[in-house]
């Protein structure tokens, strides 16, 4: 069985799954129950200056029958007194010495305020500190959270204040609401941060109520931007994680990254590990289903690792990072085409309409006799289950014209029905970068491009 233990910048936990700093870690009683359920660690809901919260704090994005593909919130940091939080943190850590207890903090931007909070957190016996530079709403209006994370200089300055006094590991949590995630990451590392975590929530307005015309969620008739999280943000988080993995500056520092953003299943978790995460934080799916989801997160990840002969989390970490590439380095001669498994096809024709209306018009419909037919080619007098099913045409890819865009593969509702098959293009591998260097005229002039295509046999449909 795979070993899921991690040692994250000196913070140890029996598995890589930590509850992210958020409502699930609002109190000692909650974290206690989460640890009973099996969570490897918890990042306490951010503590800091006094706040008051509002109601109607969470909005959500639903799609079809799937509830809460993303949540959006305008909740602030912990609204419980600092002393209560610090006392409960100490109690939880004493009760659970083997679990990771990390405390998220955010205070006014002065060295005194930061020194004070760091000392008080360390007094609890916590394993680490996470600096919340990411909260995009409310706190940022008071000069904290994203107001810090969005300016690399502030990010570096405050991290230095913290590192001046901190004796336990310090994780800097980054906001995704920036043009480049690399700059604040480098700034934090330059100031000596022990580790990074990302992503915090994404700026968002989750919707408008069509009955009342109010913003969702409505706070006494008003609304505004809130932090967006959950399965829908996972691709954004993966991209930012990979961006750090691909940055030489960040990589040279050799500090671990705790990743989060839409992790709902062990499959998501494995993907984050493969792109360089050393620990994983989870919030929205716990808010959806409760602490119990930890069971399959660990079980599924462990079984997948066994099936791939990975013994430790360290063996998985970053294995796919070397595949992250710029467009200019992709092989332009690689060719794949779509192929439909007719034994699995249910003839919903979603591939046909997607290809025909919005892609490259290379799926045709064939009747039982093998004749190409148009949609709706039945007579108005034709009806009934038998006629409809038996004369239903079969979609088939015209492979010579398929550009391999993969749209049909994505819309097909049947598992493993459409596959993308690599076919020989008959051309030597070449990248855009190589073309720029070897044949610059092809990349600058359409006539030269035309000649190049004719010579190499690249047909555009």
């Amino acid at each position: 069985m795979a070993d899921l233990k991690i040692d994250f910048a000196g913070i140890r936990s029996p598995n890589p799954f930590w509850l992210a700093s958020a409502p699930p870690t609002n109190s000692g009683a909650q974290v206690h129950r989460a640890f009973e359920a099996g969570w490897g660690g918890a990042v306490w809901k951010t503590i800091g200056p006094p706040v008051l919260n509002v109601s109607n704090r969470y909005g959500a994005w639903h799609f079809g029958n799937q509830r809460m593909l993303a949540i959006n919130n305008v909740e602030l940091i912990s609204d419980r007194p600092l002393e209560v939080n610090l006392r409960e943190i100490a109690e939880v850590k004493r009760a659970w010495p083997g679990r990771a207890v990390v405390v998220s903090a955010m205070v006014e931007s002065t060295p005194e305020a930061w020194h004070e909070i760091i000392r008080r957190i360390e007094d609890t016996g916590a394993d680490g500190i996470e600096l919340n530079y990411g909260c995009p709403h409310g706190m940022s209006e008071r000069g904290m959270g994203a107001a810090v994370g969005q300016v690399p200089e502030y990010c570096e300055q405050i991290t230095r204040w913290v590192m001046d006094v901190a004796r336990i590991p310090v994780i800097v949590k980054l906001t995704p609401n920036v043009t480049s995630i690399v700059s604040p990451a480098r700034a934090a590392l330059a100031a000596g941060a022990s580790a990074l975590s990302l992503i915090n929530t994404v700026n968002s307005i989750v919707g408008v109520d069509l009955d009342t015309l109010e913003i969702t969620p409505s706070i006494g008739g008003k609304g505004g931007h809130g932090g967006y999280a959950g399965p829908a943000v996972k691709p954004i988080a993966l991209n930012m994680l990979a961006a750090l993995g691909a940055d030489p500056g960040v990589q040279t520092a050799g500090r671990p990254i705790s990743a989060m953003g839409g992790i709902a299943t062990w499959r998501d978790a494995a993907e984050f590990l493969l792109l360089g995460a050393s620990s994983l934080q989870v919030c929205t799916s716990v808010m959806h289903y409760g602490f119990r989801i930890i069971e399959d997160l660990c079980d599924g990840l462990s079984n997948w690792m066994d099936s791939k002969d990975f013994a430790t989390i360290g063996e998985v970490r970053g294995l796919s990072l070397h595949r992250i590439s710029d467009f200019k380095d992709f092989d332009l001669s690689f060719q794949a085409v779509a192929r439909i498994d007719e034994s699995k096809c249910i003839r919903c024709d979603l591939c046909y309409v997607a290809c025909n209306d919005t892609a490259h018009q290379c799926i045709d419909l064939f009747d039982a006799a093998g004749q190409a037919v148009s949609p709706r080619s039945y007579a108005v007098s034709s009806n009934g289950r038998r006629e409809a099913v038996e004369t239903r045409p079969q979609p088939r890819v015209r492979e010579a014209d398929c550009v391999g865009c993969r749209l049909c593969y994505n819309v097909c509702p049947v598992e493993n029905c459409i596959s993308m098959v690599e076919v020989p293009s008959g051309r030597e591998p070449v990248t855009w970068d190589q073309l720029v260097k070897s044949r610059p005229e092809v990349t600058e002039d359409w006539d030269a491009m035309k000649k190049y295509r004719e010579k190499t046999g690249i047909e555009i449909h």
Partner: protein
Amino acid sequence: MATNGLAEAFPPLTQQEAIVESHRCLFCYDAPCIHACPTHIDIPGFIKKISTGNLVGSARTIFDSNLLGATCARVCPVQELCEGACVLGKDHKPVMIGRLQRYAMDYAYERGGPAIGIAPPTGRSVAVVGAGPAGLSCAGELARRGHSVTIFEKRALAGGLSTYGIISLREPMEASLQEVAMIERLGAKIEIERELGGNVSLHQLQKDFAAVFLSVGLGTTQPMDIPGEELILDGLDYIESSKLDPAGMKIGRNVVVIGAGNTAIDCATVAKRLGADTVTMVYRRSAQEMTAYPHEFEFIKKEGVTVCFLTQPVRMLAENGRVNGLECVRMELGPADGSGRRSPVPVKGSAFILPADQVVKAVGQQKPVVAGLQTERGFIQVNTELETSVKGLFAGGDCIRARGSASTVMAVQDGKLAAAAIHSRIMGSIMNRR
């Protein structure tokens, strides 16, 4: 009006059920359910609109193809039509298209009926004979195109078999009558207790109207020519009583229903649900030749009805005018007959008596009789435009169903196609006159 035993079998979907179910639809392109529906309703289109909360649009999408969508949602053999063709049926359960259609229809009728645009008056009139589904569909389609339509109906209530002949379990009478009211709101006038050959003359209609549409249905139940037949109840009358006056209806303790079509199944259901101790269906052919839909046959078996195949009634038994049994003989299958089905022949010495105090026959209706029209296998012959052998005289519904099985939805489509043909004929003549 129905007693509990015959209360509508399926409750309406709740909003939650409808939304969850509508999201199951894959929104197939050129969907097979549309092909399978005789009226070719844009099914994924109306289901998508349920999922987005556009119920007004959903109902209108249905009405665009089928003015009697509320009846069809209840009585269509969806297993043989739209749902039978659903691509999700291959691996799991098809989308509940019928019940979603009813959800959209209920929404429209609960708010005073659909908002259907009506074209400016054309100044032309059309007569429709018979206010069953074909007649109502044709009348409604013509009325929305601006024609003046008069429907002549021999009964006291319009709606035809939807009103009188479909058991309440499937369609309560109110559902049919609300559609009749909707057709009237489109502008069609209904004259009740006007019967062709009685107080309505076809010749006069042809003189007074630009076109005539015959949707006269079929006749009474065919005679069986067995001794004591006068003691046998007519299946359609039996169902009609169950709709008009279920509480006052006399149900036998041991009921025998002759026949194995969908009407026979409805009669057996009425008997069972309204209190008979035993209900037995007898059919002279075997299960393979039975015309009832497979899902109906499954239903009746679960109701606890006994079905005796290869059993031919030969004589009614009665004492002092009170029925006490039906004498039958066993049959075996011989060579194929004219209909392609193997014809049953009696087994010698196999006579036996089925005890019964009530016998109902549902062995098919008699062919329509309209003098002067060419027929096909006893039904009124029409061309692809639903025009009979007489110019300007169109026909549709059960009275033309020489092939295929008669159904409400086929009748609705006939009415729709005939209306389109009549409309283009009338508009053509108006253009020519200019």
